[in-house]
């Protein structure tokens, strides 16, 4: 695995001020530090996990990296350039390389658009595969394991797992280098989530993608990611190789977090299952 850095984040900050508890009172305005002076690097070709409890700023951090929300301070370097201060035109060019898959496959697809329109939208925005969009869509659907014949259907005709596949197809449309998976499997059943994780890993190897995998599910992250960052109240408290972190967490918060994961006590090894992919 190459050790080259693909994304470098320096001192990223995002604060929100919250209305005081009493509606007309002016006192007691609170500042919430959603992302508080965060710096880290993502290496090319790796799957970096980001874990933490809800409200710790995981999703905010993901959105900041793509400038979907404006940071208060800080820099995000991508291809040696500060992504956040790029002029609009260059920013748009850069966004081809950076994509995101959202959590809820029911909310992140426009119910009034056909699958072909949904998946080809990024192509149109970025002027790619001009006049050959449908072919590209076909190719993408095949890639994520959906029948090409379904491209003129609407999202409601698909199950949760299939919708997440559509989301993945859309994210990969522009051939990105870096994909943020924001709780991409959290709303799915275990057997479906297994299929999506296998697909994501297969695609990652095929296109040498880099993922930032945001999740609150520690066993998924432990299985799927190469390195893991632990976030608490807007700060990153620990970054470590997965095996090392899971065997021997050093930060006290990480330890509390890990001790609360329910585990199955295995006395006997399971026999090899049927229907394994890859």
């Amino acid at each position, binding site marked *: 695995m190459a050790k080259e850095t693909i994304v470098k984040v320096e001192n990223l900050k995002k604060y929100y001020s919250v209305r005081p508890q009493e509606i007309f009172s002016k006192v007691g305005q609170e500042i919430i530090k959603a992302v508080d002076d965060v710096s880290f690097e993502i290496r090319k070709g790796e799957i970096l996990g980001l874990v933490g409890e809800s409200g710790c700023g995981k999703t905010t951090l993901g959105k900041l990296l793509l400038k979907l929300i404006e940071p208060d301070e800080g820099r995000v370097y991508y291809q040696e350039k500060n992504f956040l201060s790029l002029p609009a035109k260059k920013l748009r060019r850069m966004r081809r390389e950076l994509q995101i898959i959202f959590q809820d496959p029911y909310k992140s697809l426009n119910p009034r658009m056909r699958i072909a329109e949904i998946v080809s939208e990024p192509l149109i925005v970025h002027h790619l595969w001009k006049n050959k969009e449908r072919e590209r869509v076909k190719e993408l659907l095949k890639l994520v394991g959906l029948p090409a014949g379904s491209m003129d259907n609407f999202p409601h005709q698909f199950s949760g797992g299939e919708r997440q596949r559509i989301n993945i197809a859309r994210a990969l449309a522009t051939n990105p280098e870096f994909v943020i998976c924001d709780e991409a499997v959290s709303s799915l059943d275990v057997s479906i989530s297994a299929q999506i994780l296998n697909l994501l890993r297969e695609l990652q190897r095929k296109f040498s993608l880099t993922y930032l995998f945001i999740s609150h599910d*520690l066993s998924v992250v432990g299985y799927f990611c190469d390195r893991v960052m632990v976030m608490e109240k807007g700060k990153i408290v620990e970054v470590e190789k997965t095996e090392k972190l899971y065997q021997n967490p050093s930060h006290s918060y990480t330890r509390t977090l890990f001790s609360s994961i329910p585990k199955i006590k295995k006395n006997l090894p399971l026999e090899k299952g049927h229907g394994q992919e890859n």
Partner: protein
Amino acid sequence: MSLLEVRDLRVSFAGENGKIPILRGVNLKVNKGEVLGLAGESGCGKSLTALSILKLLPEKAYFDGGEILFEDENLLEMDANQLMKIRGRKIAMIFQEPGASLDPLFTIGNQIGEAIEKKLNDPCSVWLPRSSKLKVMSEVERLLGLVKMPKPKKVLHQYPHQLSGGMAQRAMIAMALAGNPSLLIADEPTTSLDVTTGSKIIALLKELRESFKMSILFISHNLALLSQISKRIGIMYLGRIVEEGPTDEILNQPCHPYTRLLLLCLPDPERRDRPLSSIPGSVPEPAALGAGCAFASRCPKKIEICRIKEPEMKKVGENHLVACHNL
């Protein structure tokens, strides 16, 4: 001794082209003081089973046969008045999204108080004299203390939106305890909560089970979680329980092919090199089910008879039952 026994419970939905069977003969038993776990993927009928027990079926669903025996009385034959004496008193329920199950317009004190008033009085009366109002509030405070609510006095006057997810779930549990139930049905009570909060709620439920001598029917899709709270679990697939037995045995020596595949889908941080297996095919539509085993279309171990005859539960160990032809 069994507290709750569900026998061959069938619930169907009225569809456009005739009935759609959703629960297709559920059999389960909850013994006194026991926690029974019920697992399965979404759509398998876990929640519907729970709702059936309290006769809270959604509009289009109806009972299509079977019995629900609670303390040897069939709940399905009771009228509304008799049920009132059981719901919230002998059988209480907590739901997945605590925020959604609390009324946003009433304070926590009022909502839990309502449950206590129902218990103190005739279940159908609404009004209470002022003196008993105060008694009710002190009782609510005691309940909030039992569920280890932080600052119970303050929470009494707060509205649901002011509580965090964990606090709201504690409030729900307090409300459930108001009737001093002998059976608590917990439908995915920690799914919407963070792991750390979730594990505290689990610890609380365990403790309350001890001190109240309650039985719990604990429903979850998370097998690892179930293994922490229940000694016995049932695995559901498409409206039937396909395997039931001691938790350790099921998780370590699953007999039904579905249980086995389900366990292999779970990501394990200790076996990172192994690609996750997935269950081939997809869950068939309940309306399109023919004769034979519901899992047959996806089963790697199917034999001829699986397509023709629905398998019965067979004993494979002490208290371990499996519904599969090919064992």
